[in-house]
């Protein structure tokens, strides 16, 4: 092995590591000397946008993160909330956008693996996976290949690990043509008094490495530079990691088994920047130092340098601090599960990360400087200008519009996707994909979790503040629509280049809206992830703050679903419909919207959101309603169609409104729900709503074999509508590219 630490750090090398000259000076200042090559690599990852949140931290601090039921907010591997009965739910969302664009199968698969680890690290058994996916326009030559690969990768990993993938969302928009988004979310359940944190403690305690061996996977930015030192010129090292879900499954079982003992003081998964960031984080949280002997790191490849070992992103690895004397017992557990186990160092009182290799110190850095001294930027921004309210034109043929929208890429069934996911394994999925929120029973109880991921990037682009509010509100509404009480959210904030003032303006605006919604709905943010620089050739993606919401349901037998259940049931609309076609799906698809100057999106009235939602939830909890659907993309028509298709029966509805019919049918006014119930029950509900001052309208009845609105203004055969809805995606995916 050549000694990379003899390499003189040049301005060029600093740049290759993604550090600015100012940042480099800061490193030298913090260390009191020039870093060596390995140290530079470590600073570069610790101070990267991904690890340090240098552009976003300032604004993230403003988000509400507390509620009486929050056990642990942002800052740990995942957020933790109390669901009563001594149990906690642990969850988080993460993005894997860039790797999934380069290699969709492995990129998406390792995204799932990474987020699973964040959750079981804290002591939870993962019980559900979700995903939020964004692809370019369907006609773009790469879209099909990317969609197929991502879905297969998510399934390939999740199915093998044996955690059900119970839902998600899938959108298409040209802004993602060169930069798809893959956000994965994991939800786990733990005992409230058995939650594990990452703060290391106890000078002299062993630092233990478990899981897979370390290879040269995913060594980023500096890959080129490092390749020159490995005498391996035959091929450039791929920077994509390959996931091994089988090992992950063993790792879950082994960790949970060890967590049943009292051996673990602290534990942390090796995520981005692997060994480095996990040790730094553990040491920093605990206010201690770490001394690691890199010779002890289990290695998959020969002649790995300290630089490579520290920066490798090999998957399926964890770092733990054990109580002294428990090593042998812990080792036996990992041996049983056929996983590597190695004591690679110990805790010190130096406050430093000290790395030795071949008997020499190859790195020695103050932990504080790696974490606290990381730069924080309050990047300049320009708020997105206010938009005009649009007057969106009517189409000639309403029937065609209904068929095109319901049977088109944006509203069609996602069955082709979720049939490739094992959404039932673990035996607690009681609401499968296809509804408003997935519902997963808390094992062995009558309680259930309701989970939904949502955001409407069109709105965020037109008006980030409204868009931010709406994303949070939509998850809240989806959870409500199945009968759940929304408790908290996680997020995956996907934006373009923060160094552009308009993009930073989108970021700040979305966060402002999200924060407002969280406060108004008592729905704090407990974890999340930021992904910036999502752009190709200078054109950024639509701002996409994906929100993952979790709620709880005390009596899962009361759960509501979207499908009509009995012909003759009366359909009731809760909530007022306004002239809000601006930035709607209808506007974009039927009229075309102006991407440079989009029209104002629907306004989110959070007080109203709460009032209508609480009313609907009470109906479900009281057993008055088991059929419910919220209104979102595509408005009333889309929701009615979903309920009819899912229930396998038609609709006859009559919408009374002062608005033009196309507005009444496609407006995306928020805070609305459709419910269906027997005639008597529906009448009772109408009265209750009236008395409570909740806007309510009886629309018609379920049944028959036609989808009919306003005496034939819309009238299509259910069989055709259902076929268009179910067939779009499979036929799209089967088409030759």
């Amino acid at each position, binding site marked *: 092995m050549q000694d990379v630490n003899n390499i003189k750090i040049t301005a060029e090398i600093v740049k290759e590591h993604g550090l600015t000259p100012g940042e480099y000076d800061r490193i030298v200042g913090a260390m009191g000397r020039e870093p060596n090559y390995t140290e530079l690599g470590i600073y570069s990852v610790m101070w990267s946008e991904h690890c340090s949140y240098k552009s976003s931290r300032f604004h993230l601090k403003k988000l509400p993160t507390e509620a009486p039921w929050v056990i642990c907010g942002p800052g740990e591997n995942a957020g933790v909330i109390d669901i009563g009965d001594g149990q906690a739910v642990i969850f988080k969302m993460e993005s894997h956008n860039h790797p999934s664009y380069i290699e969709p199968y*492995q990129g998406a698969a390792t995204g799932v693996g990474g987020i699973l680890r964040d959750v079981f690290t804290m002591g939870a058994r993962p019980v559900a996976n979700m995903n939020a996916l964004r692809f370019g326009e369907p006609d773009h030559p790469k879209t099909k290949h990317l969609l197929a690969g991502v879905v297969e990768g998510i399934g390939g990993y999740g199915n093998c690990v044996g955690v059900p993938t119970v839902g998600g969302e899938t959108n298409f928009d040209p802004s993602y043509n060169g930069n798809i988004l893959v956000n994965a979310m994991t939800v786990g359940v733990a005992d409230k008094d058995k939650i594990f944190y990452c703060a290391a403690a106890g000078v002299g305690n062993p630092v233990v490495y478990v899981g897979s061996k370390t290879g040269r996977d995913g060594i980023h930015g500096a890959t080129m530079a490092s390749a020159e030192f490995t005498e391996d010129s035959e*091929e450039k*090292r791929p920077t*994509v990691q390959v996931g091994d879900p*089988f090992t992950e499954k063993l790792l879950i079982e082994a960790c949970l088994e060890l967590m049943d003992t009292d051996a673990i003081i602290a534990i942390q998964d090796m995520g981005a920047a692997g060994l480095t960031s996990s040790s730094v984080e553990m040491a920093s949280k605990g206010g201690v130092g770490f001394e690691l002997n890199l010779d002890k790191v289990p290695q998959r490849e020969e002649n790995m340098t300290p630089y490579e070992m520290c920066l490798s992103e090999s998957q399926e690895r964890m770092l733990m601090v054990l109580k002294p004397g428990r090593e042998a017992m812990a080792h036996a557990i990992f041996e049983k599960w056929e996983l590597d186990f190695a004591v690679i160092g110990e805790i010190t009182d130096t406050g430093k990360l000290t790395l030795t290799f071949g008997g020499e110190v190859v790195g020695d850095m103050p932990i504080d400087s790696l974490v606290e001294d990381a730069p924080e930027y309050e990047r300049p921004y320009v708020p997105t200008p206010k938009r005009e309210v649009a007057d969106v034109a009517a189409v000639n043929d309403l029937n065609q519009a209904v068929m095109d929208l319901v049977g088109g890429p944006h509203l069609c069934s996602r069955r082709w996707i979720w049939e490739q996911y094992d959404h039932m394994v673990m035996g607690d999925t009681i609401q499968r994909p296809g509804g408003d929120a997935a519902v997963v029973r808390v094992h062995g109880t009558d309680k259930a979790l309701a989970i939904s991921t949502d955001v409407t990037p069109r709105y965020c682009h037109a008006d980030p503040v409204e868009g931010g509010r709406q994303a949070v509100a939509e998850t809240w509404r989806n959870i409500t629509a199945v009968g759940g009480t929304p408790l908290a959210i996680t997020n995956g904030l996907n934006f373009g280049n923060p160094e552009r003032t308009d993009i930073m303006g989108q970021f700040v605006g979305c966060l402002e809206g999200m924060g407002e919604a969280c406060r108004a709905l008592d729905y704090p943010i407990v974890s999340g992830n930021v992904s910036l620089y999502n752009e190709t050739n200078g054109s950024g993606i639509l701002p996409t703050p994906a929100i993952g919401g979790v709620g709880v349901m005390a009596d899962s037998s009361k759960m509501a679903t979207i499908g009509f259940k009995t012909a003759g049931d009366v359909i009731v609309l809760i909530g007022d419909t306004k002239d809000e076609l601006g930035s709607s799906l209808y506007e974009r698809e039927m009229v075309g919207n102006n991407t440079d100057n989009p029209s104002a999106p629907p306004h989110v009235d959070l007080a109203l959101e709460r009032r209508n939602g609480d009313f609907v939830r009470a109906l479900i909890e009281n057993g008055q309603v088991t059929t419910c659907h919220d209104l979102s993309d595509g408005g009333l028509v889309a929701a009615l169609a979903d309920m009819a298709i899912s229930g396998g029966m038609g609709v006859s509805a009559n919408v009374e409104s002062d608005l033009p019919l196309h507005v009444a049918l496609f407006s995306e006014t928020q805070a609305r729900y459709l419910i269906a119930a027997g005639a008597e029950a529906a009448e009772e509900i109408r009265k209750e709503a009236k008395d409570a001052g909740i806007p309510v309208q009886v629309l018609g009845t379920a049944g028959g074999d036609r989808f009919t609105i306003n005496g034939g203004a819309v009238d299509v055969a259910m069989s055709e509508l259902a076929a268009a809805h179910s067939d779009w995606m499979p036929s799209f995916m089967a088409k030759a590219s």
Partner: protein
Amino acid sequence: MKARIHVTLKNGVLDPQGKAIEHALSNMGFGGVDAARQGKFIELDLVETDRDAAHASVDEMCRKLLANTVIENYSIELE
């Protein structure tokens, strides 16, 4: 003409299948296997009879479909 194609993982790319085979062989009492790697072997029956043309065309098939060149290498033999 027949084309025989080997698709193997690039050096340094994790090979979970190979690792599992190693493990299983050793569990079954087969000692002395230092490493195992698993790749794909694809045979194509081609109408083309010209070697150069066949090679060019199979090479394109490999790049576009049969191998994932981000993580895999391929090699082509014609018979």
